[in-house]
C-alpha cells in the first residue's frame, strides 16, 4: 500500500503514560511484541534489564541481562523484536549484537571490535529492513553497516565528517516501508536519508533549539505516511517532520501520572504532601529521551529516560486523495 497523496492532520494528542520509577528505570528503547506486549529496555551503569509491559500499563515481569557473558549486554542501546519475539540488542561497550528470546535465553551473538568491513566500534542504532536484514549504526566508525540476522556482512557506507554521507558519531536509525534509511547524525545535528544501498537522498536540520533545529539528535523513526520523528535529545523534545523533511510540530512532553504511579502514591502520604507544595508543571516534560518508536496504528512511544516512564502520543490524521489535497505550491497565500 502506497503513501497517501496528502494528510489532513487533525491533531496529535497525548495518549497516556506508562511506567514509573522502580518499574521502568532509565528506559532507553522499546520494542513491540505480540498481544500488545512491550519490551522496554532499561539501562544504567551496571544495570541492564528488559521489562515486559502491557500497553495498558501492567507489569508483566522482567529479566536482567547485564554482563559480558554471551547473552548479556553491558551498554545496550537498541532493542528490536522479530515476529517470534526474539529480541535483538546492540551493545556499544562489547561491540556486538546479541539475540535472546523473550525470556532472556541466548539465541545468537555476533560482532567483532574493529574498523574493518563488518567489524563494529560502539554499535548503537539498529533497524530491520523489509527483508529482515539489519542496519546497524557503527557509531565510533562513523558509518552504517548492513548485516543478515545471523551477522553476515552485506555492506555499508559512511566515514567521519560533515559532508553528504559523512557522519559524526551517528546514533539512531530507521528504515521506512520502501527501504529508505534515516540516520540521526548525532554530532552533526542533522538527519540524513539514504536509499537502501546508501545513496544519499537528503539531509535536514542544523544546530540550535528552534523549529527544525537540533541539539544532538539521538533517535529517529518513520511512520506509514512517511512522517519522520526525531528525538532532539539535547533540547528534550521530539520533532515531527513530513516526508520531505519539513518541520511540522514538536512534542516537549505532556505526561500525567501513570496508572501504576497513581496506585503507588496512594500509600505514600509524605511525598503526596510534598507534591502538593511543589510546582508540578515541570513533571510533564520529557527529560533526556533518546529514542522514539511509532506503532502501525499511529501511536508514538517515547521512552522518557530521565523520568523513568514512557510517554505515548496518538496521531490523528486523515489520508487525502488528489481531489482532497491541492497540488504542491511554493508561494504562501492569504486569500483562504
Amino acid at each position: 500500500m502506497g503513501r497517501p497523496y496528502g494528510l489532513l492532520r487533525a491533531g496529535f494528542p497525548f495518549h497516556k503514560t506508562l511506567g514509573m520509577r522502580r518499574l521502568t528505570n532509565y528506559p532507553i528503547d522499546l520494542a513491540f511484541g505480540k498481544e500488545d506486549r512491550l519490551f522496554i529496555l532499561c539501562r544504567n551503569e551496571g544495570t541492564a534489564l528488559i521489562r515486559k509491559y502491557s500497553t495498558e500499563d501492567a507489569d508483566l515481569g522482567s529479566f536482567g541481562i547485564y554482563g559480558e557473558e554471551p547473552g548479556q549486554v553491558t551498554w545496550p542501546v537498541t532493542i528490536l523484536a522479530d515476529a517470534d519475539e526474539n529480541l535483538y540488542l546492540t551493545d556499544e561497550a562489547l561491540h556486538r549484537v546479541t539475540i535472546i528470546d523473550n525470556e532472556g535465553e541466548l539465541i545468537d551473538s555476533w560482532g567483532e571490535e574493529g574498523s574493518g568491513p563488518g567489524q563494529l566500534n560502539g554499535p548503537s542504532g539498529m533497524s530491520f529492513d523489509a527483508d529482515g536484514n539489519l542496519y546497524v549504526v557503527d557509531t565510533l566508525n562513523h558509518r552504517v553497516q548492513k548485516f543478515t540476522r545471523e551477522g553476515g556482512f552485506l555492506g555499508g557506507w559512511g566515514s567521519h565528517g560533515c559532508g553528504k554521507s559523512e557522519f559524526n558519531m551517528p546514533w539512531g536509525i530507521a528504515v521506512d516501508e520502501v527501504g529508505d534509511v534515516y540516520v540521526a547524525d548525532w554530532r552533526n545535528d542533522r538527519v540524513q536519508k539514504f536509499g537502501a544501498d546508501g545513496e544519499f537522498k537528503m539531509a535536514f536540520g542544523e544546530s540550535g533549539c528552534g523549529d527544525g533545529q537540533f541539539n544532538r539528535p539521538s533517535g529517529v523513526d518513520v511512520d506509514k505516511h512517511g512522517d519522520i520523528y526525531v528525538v532532539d535529545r539535547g533540547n528534550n523534545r521530539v520533532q515531527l517532520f513530513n516526508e520531505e523533511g519539513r518541520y511540522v510540530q514538536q512534542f516537549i512532553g505532556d505526561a500525567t501520572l501513570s496508572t501504576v504511579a497513581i496506585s503507588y502514591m496512594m500509600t505514600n502520604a509524605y511525598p503526596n504532601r510534598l507534591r502538593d507544595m511543589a510546582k508540578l508543571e515541570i513533571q510533564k516534560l520529557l527529560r533526556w529521551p533518546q529514542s522514539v518508536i511509532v506503532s502501525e496504528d499511529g501511536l508514538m512511544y517515547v521512552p522518557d529516560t530521565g523520568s523513568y516512564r514512557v510517554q505515548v502520543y496518538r496521531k490523528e490524521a486523515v489520508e487525502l486523495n488528489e481531489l482532497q489535497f491541492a497540488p504542491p505550491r511554493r508561494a504562501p497565500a492569504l486569500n483562504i
Partner: protein
Amino acid sequence: MADEDLGLIAHLLRRAGFGASREELEAYAAKGYDEVVEDLVDEERCPPIDEDIIKRYFGGQWPDFQSGAWIYRMLNSPRPLEEKMALFCHHVFATGFAKVAHALAMNDQIDLFRRIGMSNIREILLELSMNPAMINWLDNNENIKGEPNENYGRELLELFSMGVGNYTEDDIKNCALAFTGWTYAQPVPLYPHGYYSPEFLFRPEDHDFGEKTFLGHTGNFNGDDIIDIIVEQPATARFISRHLYNFFVADEPQVPSWNVTPPQDPEAIETLADAFMESNGDMRHVLRTLFKSDFFKAARFKRVKSPAELITGVLKLVGTYRTPTPGMPQYHRAATLMGQELFNPPTVEGWHTGQEWIDGGMLTERINFAVDEVGDASKPGIQALIKRLRTVGDSLTPEQFVDTCLDLAGPVNLEDKTRADLIRFAQSGGDLVFSSNGSANGQTEESTDRIILMLQLIVASREYQFA
C-alpha cells in the same frame, strides 16, 4: 627539558590536577612551568571537557553514577584545576548525600563548585548560601523569623570563612537572622518520576528585616550584606589561605585545631592572605600566587594523596578510562573504601586529611588498588611504559631498571633506603634484558613480568602515598 623540570611539572599537575600521563607531562613541560600555571588558573585558555560525551555515556541520577562521571572528568578534563577546585570546595564547604538525600541537588552543587570554584570568594559564599543542597544540609530551610536556626550561620563563620576565635556568639545569632527566609522551593519529589532540581527561594515573610549588629557593623542586614562584611575580614583571608595551603601545598593539622595550632609555614599563609586581600578574594590570583611560589615548588611529596588523587593518579599511569568505558562507579566505591566517599563527606568539616587518610585498613585498600591496576601488562599506559623502557637499551643494569621505572611512573622520589632495596631486588634477577623481537609465541616476556613486579613495588611504597 631537564628531568628536574619534568619533576616540577609533575608536582604541579599532581596538586593542581589529578596527575598526568607521561605524554601529557611532556606536552606540559614543553610549554614551560609559568605557561602551564596560566593554562591552569585561566581555564578559558583550554577547551572544556566534551559535555556531549558525558551526557551520552554517563547518565544516572544516583551519587555513585555521578561520582563515577566526576572521576571521568578528573581524568580527562583539559581544565584539571577546575575539577580540583570543585573537589576543594566539596571538601571545605562539605555537604553530604547522607542527609541531603537528593542526588540531583548534590550534583548541582558539584556543578556549581566547578563553575565558580576559581571565581571570587564573595561569589562563592553567596552562591553557597543560595545552594539548596547546602541550605538543606545545614537546616537553613528551617531558619525563619522568630524561630531562627543558627546552624548555617555558625558554620559559615566557623568552617567556611573565618574560623573559630574571630567572632562572638552574638555575631553567630545575628548572622543567622540575616539568612532567615533563605530557603528553596519545594521540588517535585522523587516518586514516581525521579528527582527534579530544587531552586533557591527567598521568602520575605520568613525574613527578619530588623536591625542586626555583626562584627561591629550595624544595619538591616540581609545575607549578602553579611557576606560583604565577611570577605573583608583579614581572618577570612588567612583561613581560606590556610585551607588552600593544606589542600595544595602541605598537610596541616585538622581544621578544629587551627585556632590553637599555628600554621607550619606562617610566611606562606601571609603571602597567600596578602594575595587574597589585594585582589578582594580573587581565587585565580591567589592560586596563581600559590603555584608560582617557592614554598609550593619546594613542597614535593609533602602531602598524603587523598583517595581521589591516588585513584586518578594510578589510572593516569595505566592509561585506562581515557574514553567512555563502562565501570566508572567502581572507582567511586574504591575511593569510599579508602575513606573518601565523594558526594558524602563524613561531616560538615569535610574529610580529615594528611596522615588521617592512612590507617591499617585504608592503607591496605590503597596499596591493593594500585598493585592490582599496574599488574595488568595489557593496559595502554603499562604498554607505553614498557615501550619507553625498551628505548633505553636492550639491556638495563639493575640501577638503570629501577631509576627508569621510577622516572616513568612519576617521576617518583624514593628515600635512599627504599631505592636501595629496589635495586637489591632487581639485582636478584640480573640485568633486565629485552628479547630482540618482543614476546614470542604469545607468551609474556620475562622482562615484562619483572617490569610489572617492579611497578607494583613502586606503587606499594610508602613514598607513593605522597603527592
